[in-house]
C-alpha cells in the first residue's frame, strides 16, 4: 500500500513556542534547523536559539499513514520559507505568546498571510498560558479580532496533553469542513 503523508503547519511570531510545540508531540527528535543566536546580536536577549528554515516533527499512524508537523521560522527574514511550507497543508496552527502583547499585531498579520495561502481550517493557540502575565484566551480573541467560528485554544506548548488538545481541535475542524 502506498504511504500517505499528511502535513500540518505550526506558525506564529518569533519565539511564540512553535518549536516547543512540535517537540512535545513529535515521536522523533525534532529535526530543527535552529541556530544559536549570536551573543550580542539583536535577538539574543530574548532567547538563545531560533529556527532558521523550519522544524520538522513526525507522528506515524501506521505503515501507510504519517503526519508531518512543520514549524515555520518566526523571524521575518526567513518568511520566504512560509509559502513553501504552506503548500499542501491540511490545516495550520497559529501560535501566539499570550504574555507578549507587543507580538499580537505580528501574530494577526501571519494569520492573515497563511489564510491567504490556502483556504484550509486553522486554530489559534494562546500559548504560554502558564506565564503569570498571559492574557486570557477570551481577551486575546477580542485583541486579535478572531471571529467566533475560529477556535482559540489555551495552550502550554511544554505540556504534551495541551499540545494534543490543540492538534485534535484542528483535526475536528478539518473533519467538520469535510462534512460541509
Amino acid at each position, binding site marked *: 500500500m502506498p504511504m500517505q503523508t499528511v502535513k500540518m503547519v505550526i506558525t506564529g511570531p*518569533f519565539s511564540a513556542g512553535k518549536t516547543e510545540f512540535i517537540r512535545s508531540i513529535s515521536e522523533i527528535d525534532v529535526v530543527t534547523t535552529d541556530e544559536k543566536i549570536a551573543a550580542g546580536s*539583536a*535577538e539574543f536577549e*530574548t532567547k538563545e536559539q531560533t529556527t532558521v528554515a523550519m522544524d520538522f516533527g513526525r507522528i506515524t499512524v501506521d505503515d501507510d499513514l504519517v503526519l508531518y508537523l512543520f514549524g515555520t521560522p518566526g523571524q521575518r527574514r526567513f518568511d520566504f520559507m512560509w509559502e513553501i511550507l504552506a503548500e499542501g497543508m491540511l490545516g495550520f496552527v497559529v501560535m501566539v505568546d499570550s*504574555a507578549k*502583547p*507587543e507580538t499580537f499585531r505580528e501574530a494577526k498579520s501571519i494569520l492573515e498571510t497563511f489564510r*491567504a495561502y490556502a483556504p484550509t481550517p486553522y486554530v489559534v493557540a494562546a500559548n504560554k498560558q502558564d506565564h503569570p502575565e498571559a*492574557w486570557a484566551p477570551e481577551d486575546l480573541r477580542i*485583541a486579535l479580532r478572531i471571529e467566533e467560528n475560529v477556535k482559540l485554544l489555551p495552550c502550554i506548548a511544554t505540556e504534551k496533553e495541551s499540545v494534543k488538545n490543540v492538534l485534535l481541535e484542528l483535526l475536528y475542524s478539518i473533519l467538520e469542513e469535510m462534512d460541509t
Partner: protein
Amino acid sequence: MALKGNLADFSTTQILNLINLARKSGTLHVYEPVVVAGEFVDAGTGREEDRRPKVVPGQERVQIAFKDGQLVLAATGNTDGHLANVLHKAGKLNADQARVIRERGAKYSDKALALMLINANYVTQIDVVRSIQQHTLDIVYDVMTWNEEPFAFEENVLPPPEKITVPIDLKNVIIEGTRRAQEVKPLEDELPNLDMALKFPDAPGDKFRGIHLGVEEWRVVSFINPKNSIRQIAKACNMTDTEIRRVVYGLLQAGLVELVKPPGMQAPAQKTPTRASRRQAKAPAIEKSVVQRLIAKIKEA
C-alpha cells in the same frame, strides 16, 4: 490572568473596545514610561528595526474605572480629583468656594460632600453628575492620545463606594475619542485597506441604542452596504482617506460595523499574489477516514 501591556502595542481605544465587548469591571492603571537601558522588546518579527527599548511602569499617571463594560470614573495622579476641584473646573464653584470646601470638607466623602452642597443650594444634583462625567471624559480623551505608556487592568477592582460614579457608554467614548485623535499612522495600521466594505453586525438595533453619532458618522452609516467599498463611501461623502479612516475606525472599534470583502475582491493583499495563493483552490484531497485515524492516533499519543 493579566491584562498588561504598552499602549504602543495595544492602544487605549483597543483597551476600551475590549472592556466594552467583554463587559469587564475593574480599574485600568496607566503609568509613566520608564526606559530600561540596554534592554529591548521584540515585536515578534525578530527584526532589528522592529525592536524598541524596553519600557517598564513608573509612577501612575491615571486610573480609570469600569463597571460591566461601562466607564464610571477616572482620576489622574498629578491633579487633585477632589469633588470641589471637579466642580470648580466645571465652573460650578469659584476658586474661593472650592478652596474653602476643600479645607473644611476634607473629612467628608465625595458623596457626603455632594449632599451637603446640594442641600446648601451651592450646586444641583445635575451639576454634580455632569461635572464628574466631564472630568472623567476629559481624562479618558487625553489618555486616548497617549501611545507609549505601560498599562495594567486590574479585574474587579472598583472605586470605593463613597466615590460618586457616573456610568458612561464606552461606544460613545470610543467614537468621540477617535474623532479627536490626531495621529494618522495608527489608523493606517488598523485599517490598511480602503477597498474593504462594511456591514452591520447582528442585532444592530441593540448596538446603536443610546449612541450619539455626529453628522459625518451618520452620513457614512447611511452608505453602509457590503457592496460599497470604504473608498466608494468616502467619495460619496466627499471625505479624504484620513477622514473616512477616522470615522470607520471609530465605528469599528465601537463594534457598530464590521469589515467584509466586497463581491469580487481578492483575499486582502497582505503580500503580492504568490505561487501558492494562485493555486489555493487545490487543498489536499484526503479521505475522512484518514483524519479519523489521525485523531485516534493523537488521542493515544
